[in-house]
């Protein structure tokens, strides 16, 4: 039996699925429902100082959909909690009391002054919450007031605020990072330098989801105007995965616990984040799209996969993909593949032909010997770019087959070598290191 129980920086939860700080965790009512549905933990919707903020009274969310209205990306212009601090703290306290086995972490965002943090931390501690998460991420609304991503974009501030928190509370401190920066390693290093117990990422990506072509205003539109919002959901997962991996494999931050966030919609997404070094995961959009019951599939699917693979605990595969993330220059240039089209599976749509002919290397031929619609790879031209695989509507129909050592690559005329050879030693590299 696979064991999903999770210990993240000492915070225990029955499974690694936490709800991210967002509307699903804004109130006692929601959080109780979430725990009843099976979520392992929550990061409470970000608290701020009184007087509490106000939200817009028009639409807060915009979306990007697939054809069947499948929600692919969500953006929001919502702020932190719009309820009085006391109300939230009281609710956190009773929820934690009633669900001692679940993780309850409190997200915080107060002005960048030590006094403000000193003031709020004991109040949070008093609730019995398991930890705090510093929201340095929100890209809208709060950043204009010198909070959220305005802090998260300046590593020095991250380090400073983290240090204040560590100095003023015994609770573990998670620093939530914004993706709206050029290199995620700098804020992560700053968090570590400030003494953070962990980082969590990503918060939302600054975005405009669409423009209303009648009113010429961005969506969601408030009285004819729109503002950039924060983008999340399945569309941001690749961005989040990369950022998690960057931190996991950075020499300076290696070993710093990571709570993975961004587009996690099912067990597979979660497993990928964990494999790339996340100690647990947080989910927002999937819950906001389907309701809390989605955690059921996340739990059963992850369990099943772990059992099939023989992973008994999350630790068995945590970070297993990290060593395989490398820099381009170290990729083996002696690894040669060619596209292969399975004629039995081919449905003859010709998409591979169209894209290879128009946008790649003219490496697919269209007519068979008797002029029939038959698509075949021309090995002399195929550079193994994988575009045909990506556009083929039939899974498994086009595959990339490795050429064995000693075989001749018909495109280059060269024999496939057994040894590793990469850009660092390549003759075309002006700054190559001499191969000894």
């Amino acid at each position, binding site marked *: 039996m696979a064991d999903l129980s999770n210990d993240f920086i000492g915070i225990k939860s029955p499974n690694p699925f936490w709800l991210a700080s967002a509307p699903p965790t804004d109130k006692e009512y929601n959080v109780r429902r979430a725990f009843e549905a099976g979520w392992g933990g929550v990061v409470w919707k970000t608290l701020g100082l009184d007087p509490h903020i106000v939200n817009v009274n028009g639409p807060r969310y915009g979306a990007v959909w697939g*054809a*069947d209205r499948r929600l692919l990306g969500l953006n929001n212009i919502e702020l932190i909690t719009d309820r009085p601090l006391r109300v939230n703290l009281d609710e956190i306290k009773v929820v934690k009391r009633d669900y001692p086995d679940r993780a309850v972490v409190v997200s915080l965002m107060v002005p960048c002054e030590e006094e403000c943090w000193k003031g709020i931390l004991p109040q949070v501690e008093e609730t019995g919450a398991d930890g705090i998460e510093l929201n340095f991420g929100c890209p809208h609304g709060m950043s204009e007031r010198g909070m959220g991503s305005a802090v998260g974009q300046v590593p020095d501030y991250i380090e400073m605020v983290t240090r204040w928190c560590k100095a003023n509370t015994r609770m573990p401190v998670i620093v939530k990072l914004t993706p709206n920066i050029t290199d995620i390693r700098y804020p992560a290093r700053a968090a570590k330098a400030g003494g953070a117990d962990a980082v969590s990422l990503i918060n939302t990506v600054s975005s405009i989801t669409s423009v209303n072509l009648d009113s010429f205003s961005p969506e969601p539109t408030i009285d004819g105007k729109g503002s950039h919002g924060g983008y999340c959901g399945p569309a941001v997962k690749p961005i989040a995965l990369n950022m998690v991996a960057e931190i996991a494999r950075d020499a300076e931050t290696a070993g710093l616990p990571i709570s993975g966030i961004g587009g996690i919609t099912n067990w597979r997404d979660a497993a990928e984040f964990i494999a790339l070094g996340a100690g647990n995961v947080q989910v927002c959009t999937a819950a906001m799209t389907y309701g809390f019951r989605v955690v059921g599939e996340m739990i059963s699917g992850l369990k099943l996969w772990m059992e099939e693979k023989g992973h008994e605990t999350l630790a068995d595969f945590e970070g297993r993909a990290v060593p395989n993330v490398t820099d381009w220059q170290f990729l083996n240039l002696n690894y040669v593949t060619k596209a292969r089209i399975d004629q039995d599976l081919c449905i*003859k*749509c010709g*998409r591979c032909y169209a894209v290879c002919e128009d946008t790649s290397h003219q490496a697919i031929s269209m007519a068979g010997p008797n002029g029939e619609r038959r698509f075949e790879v021309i090995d002399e031209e195929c550079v193994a770019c994988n575009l045909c695989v990506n556009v083929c509507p039939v899974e498994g129909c086009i595959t990339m087959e490795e050429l064995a050592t000693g075989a001749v690559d018909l495109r280059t005329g060269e024999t496939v070598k057994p040894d590793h050879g990469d850009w660092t030693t390549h003759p075309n590299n002006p700054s190559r290191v001499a191969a000894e």
Partner: protein
Amino acid sequence: MTDRLTPGIVAGRRDARELVEAFADLHPPLTAHEARVAADRCYFCHDAPCVTACPTSIDIPQFIREISTGATRAAAKTIFDQNILGGMCARVCPTETLCEEACVREAAEGEPVQIGRLQRFATDAQMATGAQLNSRSALTGKRVAVVGAGPAGLACAHRLAVHGHDVTLYDAKNKAGGLNEFGIAAYKTVGGFAQAEIDWLLSIGGITLETGKRLGDGLSLEQLQAEFDAVFLGIGLGGVNALRAEGEELGGVLPAVEFIADLRQADDLSTLPVGRNVVVIGGGMTAVDAAVQSKLLGAETVTIAYRRGREAMSASEWEQDLATAKGVTIRHWAQPVRITGNGAAAEVEFEYTRSGANGLEGTGEIFRLPADQVFTAIGQTLNDTPEGLALEGGKIKIDGEGRTSVSSIWAGGDCATGGDDLTVTAVAEGRDAAESIHRTFG
């Protein structure tokens, strides 16, 4: 009370409400959301097989992509540029043997992109605006006579009008439309669509419709040749093949196309008489349509008898399945020997058949079916054969662009050689003949 068990040929076997339901749209229109979802399934194939399979070569992936982005009007233009009767074709084309059969998703999953219904979505939306997307080129002063206002003639006339030529469109009947109006099954073109489409099509201008004018009856080819710069014949197949079986003169025995025409013209289907036991002889779309509609009118038993096997039937497998789903029995390998009855048909006697060394042969074994109404659907023939034109296989001989053996006369559609006898083929041939005529005008 009259019901399905009432003997003889009587009206009112079902009440008006039941009939409305029975004759409702066979492929109801897609909603906007359904259309988006259906459109999303298209792979936008390279050199798409569906386009090759369409006799009018509509750029199907293009119009589907236009639908998927909400550019429905652009989709309609893509369709109408190739096929001005795209609305009718969306309803009546046997897509299962044309575009949808060729669709790669049919090969992949047995579930093609719903091309026909998507085409209907785009064309309906445009036609609902009442506007056409074409306008006429500068007038040329050339005049063309188009004889027959079926799909071939309509498509030809429209394309000529677009090119700036003036057209006089003659039809022997009192209404235009040809089999769109008098032949196609009622549940394929509900709500008076055929006439609405003609009104919309004629709104291009430059086409003068003259109904009640029959070529060969006060109107001659010489006259038309003298009066016009070119002539196009799209007169369809007005005659029917005789059964050549004993008893075919009995009451209750009639060509299926006549029954169907009456049905299409009936204002109230509960006034249309139908037999209790109906037998339809034939294996094409006409046989299926007559059988299904008899059943829907309330006949107790309806049997299609065809002298060969299932695969040989020209009605598609999908049409055959439709018939059986509606309660029609299809009997293969049976040929009619005689119809018996006292003044009116009462029974049809069949002999079993098989394919022997010298083709089809009777087995000598006989069976009988009760029948108070017998429809023959064993093929239509060219009527009013215009003199002086070379024929081939009983049809007017044409070349690849619709030219007959006489210069200045073109022909297309069912009356001419080549292509299947389908609405869409008629449209393609009418259109191509118009282009050919236009080219000769220089």
